[in-house]
């Protein structure tokens, strides 16, 4: 047997033949590692989850065509540009989006705003929408609660929607922008952007709107018949809009064109930079705006939560250090005679220190491994219980947790081992 072999033989003997004491040190490390890992996992998972939850309350970024585009050809944002913009947003983080094409239509001669949407996109973006019935599909529309109440419509009712090019000729884009922005107005669009677009729409249409209905009455009830698939109730401007599939809007208007608004729920860390980068690309002919209130409240809550968790983690780390330190200190104190004996046999302080530090590291590693596994189980259970979703194991965090447990155990053992290695070997012989 080599000296290295003997070193490990002594080490394993100390750990496995003194199980109860070794168990104390392992349990101290285990509790610390489990608590820290669990908290760290939650520190990472909660903001992610909160971010997703907050983003379910609508868009935090809105992209509209620039005014030059809208006045020039009223073509909106074409499909390729939607794709390109989406790629830019996706490059900075996760994203969900929905596109809206707005048109002025008439129902029983009264003007309303109709939005052509992809139902799946809108549903995915706006979890807070309360739908009575179902989402729009071909031949079926989703109408706002205010419209349903005004006309007396229910789910399954028939509605005739008319389209007049003249209604949209002078102000289609601007009223579309108006609707788009007003739709996001209640979802807290950036005040400046909103203000300017609203005033533009007001001035261009020259017709004040109420509940999405222009207050002019021209008797014309012709149009295409749709069935009411559902009624949407958000408490916002969505309640005054008729939602139909893009195909139905194309068919109704006889014109296929680009969209007026793209709403994004973007996971980018720096939303300002993303907005800036989109706006800097003038060749795209689109303008990006942040939904400031959503972003700000989201960031504030997440920052508060993160700060809280990190403070708790720090407290736990200090308590762990104290706990492991006390345990290891007690274990080392119990072995004072053995340390004195080893010194009497010729062991240097360095040799004894190495033995005890490696032993402490081993306690930390074992405790760290088991503790990390338990911590993951706890974090998983908490996330399932609170957020109803599971979290994946973060390997980097796992390795860091195990190593930290070992380092804490070693650091905690430095003072008692340092004291022990200064033991005068004569103490073991001093008992006459």
């Amino acid at each position: 047997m080599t000296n290295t072999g003997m070193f490990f033989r002594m080490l394993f003997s100390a750990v496995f033949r003194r199980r109860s004491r070794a168990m104390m040190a392992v349990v101290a490390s285990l509790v610390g590692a489990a608590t820290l890992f669990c908290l760290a996992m939650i520190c990472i998972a909660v903001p992610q989850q909160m971010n997703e939850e907050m983003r379910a309350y609508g868009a935090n970024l809105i992209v509209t065509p620039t005014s030059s585009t809208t006045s020039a050809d009223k073509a909106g944002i074409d499909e390729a540009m939607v794709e390109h913009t989406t790629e830019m947003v996706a490059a900075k983080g996760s994203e969900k989006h929905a596109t809206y094409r707005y048109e002025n239509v008439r129902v029983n001669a009264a003007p309303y705003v109709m939005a052509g949407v992809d139902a799946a996109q809108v549903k995915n973006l706006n979890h807070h929408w309360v739908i009575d019935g179902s989402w729009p599909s071909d031949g079926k529309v989703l109408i706002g609660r205010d419209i349903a109440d005004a006309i007396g419509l229910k789910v399954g009712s028939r509605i005739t929607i008319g389209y007049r090019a003249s209604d949209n000729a002078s102000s289609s884009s601007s009223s579309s922008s108006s609707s788009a922005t007003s739709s996001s107005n209640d979802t807290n669009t950036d005040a400046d952007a909103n203000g300017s677009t609203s005033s533009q729409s007001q001035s261009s249409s020259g017709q004040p709107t109420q509940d999405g209905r222009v207050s002019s009455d021209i008797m014309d009830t012709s149009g295409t018949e749709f069935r009411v698939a559902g009624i949407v109730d958000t408490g916002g401007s969505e309640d005054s809009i008729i939602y139909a599939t893009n195909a139905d809007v194309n068919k109704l208007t006889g014109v296929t064109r680009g969209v007026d608004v793209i709403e994004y729920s973007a996971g980018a860390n720096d939303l300002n930079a993303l907005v800036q980068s989109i706006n800097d690309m003038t060749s795209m002919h689109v303008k990006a705006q942040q939904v400031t209130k959503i972003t700000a409240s989201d960031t504030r809550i997440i920052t508060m939560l993160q700060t809280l968790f990190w403070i708790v983690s720090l407290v736990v780390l200090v308590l762990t250090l104290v706990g492991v330190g006390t345990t290891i200190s007690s274990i080392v104190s119990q072995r004072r005679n053995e340390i004195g004996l080893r010194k009497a046999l010729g062991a240097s302080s360095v040799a004894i220190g190495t033995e005890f530090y490696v032993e402490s590291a081993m306690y930390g590693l074992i405790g760290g491994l088991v503790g990390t596994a338990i911590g993951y189980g706890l974090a998983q259970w908490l996330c399932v219980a609170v957020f109803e979703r599971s979290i994946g194991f973060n390997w980097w965090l796992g390795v860091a947790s195990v190593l930290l447990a070992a380092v804490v155990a070693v650091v905690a053992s430095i003072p008692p081992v340092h004291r022990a290695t200064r033991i005068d070997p004569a103490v073991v012989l001093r008992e006459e």
Partner: protein
Amino acid sequence: MDMLLELDHISKIYGDLHAVDDLSLTVPAGQWLAIVGSSGSGKTTLMNMIGCMDTPSRGSVKLEGRKLEDLNAGQLADVRKNLIGLVFQKFYLVPHLTAVENVMVAQYYHSVVDEKQALEALDRVGLKDRAHHLPSQLSGGEQQRVCIARALINDPKLILADEPTGNLDEKNEKIVLDLFRQLHEQGTTIIVVTHDALVASCAEREIMLNHGVLVGEKWNDEAARAAYEAAGGRPASTGAAVEGAQTGETAIGFADPTKAAKTGGE
């Protein structure tokens, strides 16, 4: 004659207490010396100073011609592991290591671990079949024999034994003393600290301490005494000005009080 150990007017003073008071002593290689005295007489303090585990407040200790006061802690540890084998009254075996592992610990700190050699050392003290037992599974006598095997494993020039039979019954005491006899016959220098007169009487030479002061010296082996004196060896002495102290060049004989106690004063 080369002296393995030379104590030159050494004292160990704690405040007003002189645990060892101005003692001079020479021990040649191969001698078996017993340091006797009652509890608190300074025997163990003296042994600690000889064993490089404590330093004298005054005076000088020379081991194999090297002055210990000139050495630092690391060098003292080297002297301890290379020259000295320690046997303790309370055995001091590492509780979570088996008998053979306890012997190997001494090898580990000395040079290279050799399990076969460690087993041979245990065989020498009659414990080969108990080699893989933990100390808690051994009797007191067996534990002391493991302690002796550990002290022998690095072939030390000096065996320092502190009350080696203090915790043993008569049977085991005899086994341990027989082991010391064998070691002595092989030329190992042995210094035994004891308050047991029977153990002390096995030694060639005895010195007696009382409250740290040398109060007597006697030889149990006249041939050894003659050889010692012929080689220029001198009696132990003390500079302490205390009544009854052995201050001069002449050894003062003494009767073992402990022996008297054991035999009822006969």
